[in-house]
């Protein structure tokens, strides 16, 4: 049986924690990116501009 107190075992655990935490950070970043896209830079849907104009014209009429 290996002794878990060896530097190799400790660095292995640190490495694994880094892998797990690193992917979590990426996932969080993706989540934030999606949020900003949705809330701040909402891409125009096809025809959305036309619909807005149409609604304005209807309001004036």
């Amino acid at each position, binding site marked *: *049986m290996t002794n878990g107190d060896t530097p190799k*075992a400790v660095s292995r*655990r640190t490495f694994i924690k880094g892998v797990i935490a690193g992917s979590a950070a990426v996932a969080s970043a993706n989540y934030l990116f999606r949020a900003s896209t949705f809330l701040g830079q909402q891409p125009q849907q096809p025809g959305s501009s036309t619909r807005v104009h149409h609604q304005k014209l209807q309001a004036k009429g």
Partner: protein
Amino acid sequence: MEIEERCNTIEEGYEFMLAYAAQGLPSDEGSRSGGEVREFLNRMVNTLNGLAESYETAVWNEGLEPPEKYQAFLDVLDRDARDSLAAIELVLVQPAISSQLVDNLNASIHLRALLTDLFLVDELLKTQSQAADLVAIPFGCERLTHSGGRTA
């Protein structure tokens, strides 16, 4: 099987799987690491069977307090071990184990939960033992070093 051995086997297995995933192998056939991947996964399966019970025995033997808090977390560990076991066994029954498949297994939240459970409980056991001013603990992956320099 002792807790230290179980913990090391799981960490070693995950470390190997990370390396295997990075190799871009289409199958476990025809390569040295491909031949080893099933061996590592089988070792992890053997280790996961009875993992929580081993920790439970250690906790009770040490008389750690409060027992209900340890038991609650051991229940979590047991669930995560079972979930991880299901994922690994699913991979093992596949005719070919590719790097991509192992990459997805590595990304499994169940395996990651299990690993972080082990890290947490191992640290707790170590801390408890330090508090009790023990020279060594008979379990845990990271053994204590006596202040005088003696290793466990």
